[in-house]
């Protein structure tokens, strides 16, 4: 029983990470109908930027909440800019092209970030500085719930609610929902779709960066290819929830995290990574629109 609770905590922590990344996928798919393959690698850049920021700003040696907060914000800002830049340079010129063209470009950008990252950051794993000292908040029997676990879940929740507030309660959020519904009509109604799309990438990339920085805190070994698997899993989570659907991305992310952790714990750890693909195939075959999605019908 203790095992189960501990694994659930693990699962929720990872699930929150997946949810943050999944939101980025879902947002971009909503406005551009593009599967942004490069998104998982933005998460990696987030972790790396946080690492470098910690060292350059001198927080690496001395754990402090302020230190982590600063590093988190720096990383989020940097990746937000990176995401917007990628969109502007690589995706925007291709809007009139068939969708496969953008998809292949996204794959190219992803490879560029990965291989470029190996060159720039060096291929060997780095150790993320312990910006916040881990101590257990709660310990009964075999279950340990640390302050870091709490931090990850809390910050994730905060960011998700912040996003929800933006999407539901602000003008830009309304514009975003309009563009997700119909790109052309929004443009005709006077919405600056370019700005909306840029902001989508800004928000999505910032969330991914936050996820990266938090993962650094919890699982300190980071390397330039660390975005590949979580990227795929978060994408599957978005599909599971219904790609284009925000609450779906969150639910999908949490489900993915919990399922994979439980499978690794109770079945076999070698199958941990396969869980994502099995879920993917299952969703696509049974209900491709996901848990919360609705399909679109083509007019004949």
């Amino acid at each position, binding site marked *: 029983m203790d095992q189960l609770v501990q694994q659930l905590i693990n699962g929720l922590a990872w699930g929150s990470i997946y949810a943050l990344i999944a939101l980025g996928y879902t947002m971009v798919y909503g406005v551009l109908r593009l599967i942004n393959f490069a998104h998982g690698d933005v998460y990696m850049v987030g972790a790396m930027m946080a690492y470098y920021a910690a060292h350059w700003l001198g927080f690496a040696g001395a754990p402090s909440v302020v230190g982590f907060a600063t590093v988190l914000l720096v990383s989020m800002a940097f990746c937000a800019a990176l995401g917007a830049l990628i969109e502007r340079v690589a995706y925007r*010129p291709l809007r009139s*092209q068939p969708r496969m063209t953008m998809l292949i*470009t996204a794959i*190219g950008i992803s490879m*560029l970030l990965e291989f470029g990252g190996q*060159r720039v950051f060096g291929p060997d794993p780095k150790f993320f500085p312990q910006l916040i000292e881990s101590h257990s908040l709660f310990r009964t029997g075999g279950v340990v719930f640390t302050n870091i676990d709490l931090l990850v879940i809390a910050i994730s929740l905060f960011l998700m609610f912040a996003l929800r507030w933006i999407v539901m309660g602000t003008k830009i959020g309304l514009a975003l929902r309009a563009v997700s519904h119909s790109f052309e009509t929004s443009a005709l109604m006077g919405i600056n779709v370019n700005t909306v799309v840029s902001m989508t990438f800004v928000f999505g990339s910032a969330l991914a960066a936050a996820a990266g920085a938090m993962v650094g805190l919890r699982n300190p070994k980071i390397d330039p290819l660390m975005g590949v698997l979580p990227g795929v899993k978060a994408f599957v989570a978005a599909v599971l929830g219904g790609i284009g659907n925000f609450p779906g991305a969150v639910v999908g992310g949490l489900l993915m995290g919990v399922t994979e952790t439980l499978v690794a714990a109770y079945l076999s750890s070698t199958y941990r990574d396969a869980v994502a693909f099995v879920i993917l195939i299952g969703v*696509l075959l049974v209900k491709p629109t996901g848990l919360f999605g609705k399909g679109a019908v083509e007019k004949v």
Partner: protein
Amino acid sequence: MNQRPNLIPLLLLAAQWPLGWLLGQVLNSYYVQIIVYIGINVILAVSLNLINGITGQFSLGHAGFMATGAYVSAACSLLAWPGLPAPLAVPLSLLTGGLAAAGAGLLVGIPTLRLRGDYLAIATLGFGEIIRVVILNADAVGGARGLSVSPTLGSYGFAVVFTCAIACVLVLWRIVHSPRGKAFTAVREDEIAAAAMGIDTTRYKITAFVVGAFWAGVAGGLFAHFIGYIHTNSFTFLKSIEIVVMVVLGGMGSTSGAILAAVVLTILPEALRDVAEYRMIIYSTLLVVMMLTRPSGLLGRHEITEWRFWRSRTAPSPLAD
């Protein structure tokens, strides 16, 4: 009417054997190896072009079919008929590998082909990875340690590979350019209209998948028997992407384009060997640049045999490509 339509193809096929011997005498084995890789990549690119380019079904899992062919053919050579002399065993293994891959194509195709566009791409990606993970966990064929393959093609590598490559191109070309074969293209152009004209689009899509997978399996088998050692690391998503890039560079739907691109993209990494650390960065940058500047690829949808292709090279056309 063409009185002897098979004369040139047969001559071409036969010529590969003396040619192979000649190349072995004249070139050092490093260059011969690159040429053999070109042959294997031609088969991969042309077979994927049938699925992605001609029939318009975006498959990102071609490496999975290649892996199936590689491992099944290797297993056959090692376990099913180990005593058989190589000239009998190898073709038999290649055929079996191809058929196994075709079966995989059927299994993957049937459920996924009712999905559209991005969803199909992702599903095929998923299946490609599942196939790889299953093989990785199959200790009977080496699993994580890889698998040594015997017999190997040795100095017959060029001849065998190019015989298969020519056969592949010939078969696919004749199918696609035949009257009934036009339906593959029609499915890509407008599936709803094709169905309204009596075409069983699902069956055509599955057929493209199965035929494409078969040849990918043959390519996998050739790869296995040429190198002599295979590991699932050779059949990852990256491999699928490399093949997709060949098809896109050549022009989606153009068989001659796919061949051209396979040649270019096999030679390019070797030419970039000097800057090996930057190789993948250059490759991915080129990919992005190509998509931004000429997404229709080298030949677009045309074949190098079409007058239309040459016309569009010289005169500015008022019509869209």
